[in-house]
């Protein structure tokens, strides 16, 4: 692993991009690494484009700025491609992870002919199949873990199960669906 992995999340207010960034912070913490997860706050409301960030390192993280040259960019809502410059500063050997139903060709076209590493996750299909509702952040979190390789998949699943049991103590019926969403995403990525 590099000295530090930097991730930038693009989402829309209310979709859970910030929550996904904080969940990633949570699970990566359990590996003993140093981690930072923070949203960029403005006057945003439901539906407005938002940005969140993660830094992951084996060493103490002291820098407190936003991330301008990310190793990974995660786009939780593909409609943002028309609004935000999601590729801004993305490292040449970095990767873009996007939630989309479109073909690779179409996504690359929308990204202005982007030739770099690209991972596509159909979070809608996975979410509807496993949860019956559209919550893109669970599949996108799994995709982030798999593609960045910041932690072991089995370790990730057991940490998430524990976290879901805590979070959904009063709604245990949704735990299985969320776990299925994570597994399905992990399997869908080559």
């Amino acid at each position, binding site marked *: 692993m590099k000295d530090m992995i930097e991730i930038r999340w693009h989402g829309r207010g209310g979709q859970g991009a910030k929550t996904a960034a904080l969940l990633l912070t949570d699970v990566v913490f359990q590996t003993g690494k140093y*981690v*930072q*997860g923070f949203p960029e706050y403005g006057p945003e409301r439901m539906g407005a484009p938002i940005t969140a960030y993660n830094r992951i390192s084996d060493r103490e993280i002291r820098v407190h700025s936003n991330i301008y040259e990310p190793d990974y960019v995660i786009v939780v809502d593909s409609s943002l491609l028309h609004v935000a410059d999601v590729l801004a500063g993305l490292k040449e050997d970095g990767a873009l992870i996007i939630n989309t139903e479109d073909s690779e060709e179409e996504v690359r076209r929308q990204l202005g002919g982007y030739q770099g590493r690209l991972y596509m996750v159909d979070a809608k299909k996975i979410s509807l199949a496993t949860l019956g509702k559209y919550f893109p952040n669970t599949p996108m979190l799994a995709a982030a873990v798999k593609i960045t390789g910041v932690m072991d998949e089995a370790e990730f699943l057991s940490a998430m199960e524990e976290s879901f049991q805590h979070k959904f103590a009063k709604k245990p019926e949704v735990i299985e669906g969320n776990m299925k969403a994570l597994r399905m995403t992990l399997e869908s990525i080559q």
Partner: protein
Amino acid sequence: MGKKDRMSGNEAVANALRQINPDVMPAFPITPSTEIPQFMATFAANGLIDTEFIPVESEHSSMSASIGAEAAGARTVTATSSCGLAFMWEELFIAASNRLPLALTLVNRALSGPININCDHSDSMGARDAGWIQLYAETNQEAYDNMIMAYRIAEHKDVRLPIMICQDGFITSHAVMNIEVLEDDVVKKFVGEYTPDDYLLNKERPMAVGPYAVSGFYMEAKRQQAEALRNVKRVALEVAAEYEQISGRKYGLFEEYRMEDAEYAVVIIGSAAGTAKDAVDRLRDKGIKAGVIKIRFFRPFPAAEITAALKNVKAVAVMDRCEGFSDHGGPLGADTISAMYQANLNAYAVNYIYGLGGRDVKVESILEVFAALQEIVSTGKVGETYRYLGLRDRKDA
């Protein structure tokens, strides 16, 4: 010694307060400090603390109720940010002059206007002359540690002054990071029970708080208050030494980072100090002797100690996350540079205004400052000493 965890700065302070279990918390919500009273109200509702949580109708009232509760003999805390602190204005002076050791956990945010919810230090800097102890944090860990040490300093018999525990809005308050928290019983034992000598609910010894003082008394009253603030330096170091025993973390009045042989130094407050440390490491790798002084206590201002740490540097940049509107620089610049003059230091000194309203501070931003210091030393020309960092300026300006 403690337990490794991860939490935001707000959560860290709220957890320190849960462990301290203060008697009373009057509060009114304001971004970005809202989560702190929110956590505390939840802790109280769930029976984790027996703090009397008072949802008041304004910050003027939260500070008034805090003063009343503290004078009555209750260990009291409140939380606020930005305009909330401004609305407490007159009450801040009353808390200090009445020598009431209450705590205010402040999440720094710019003052209006233009309206802005992001971090700068204009709120607490505006209250710097109110007679409160002010301490600042670089990280969630420091915010937590400062909160636990706060009452021990404020309630000390040689001090008895209110204390403001500050952290950077959003940058630390809403960023989840690694932290090491102490066990509940360790904190409880360290902080101890609050047993004031005199308090309004003591019927054995009636007292009046906040008397009118005519000109024949007022100056002596103020001088006495200033003495209490002066005592903070000694008490804070004693408390820090004891805290090191239980936490393993060492604290001073300020932190010196790679200052031993530094030729160029940045004096800075809050989260940007961490970013500055990364900048210093990069410069040191290139053989440039750079260092950082991170202010922890701004009130009292450790003038002599800071100038001792700066005595061998060639150039200093004092960083203010607050416009002072003196047409001369910001408050940290004014205090630091006048202290340097009194200590007969020969170093070049400039004062930067930076990071206003959440303007991001990058490692590159700080490198730019160090480059400017090198330029000053190599040319012997200081130029404008009142500068802005990261400002969009017209090309021909």
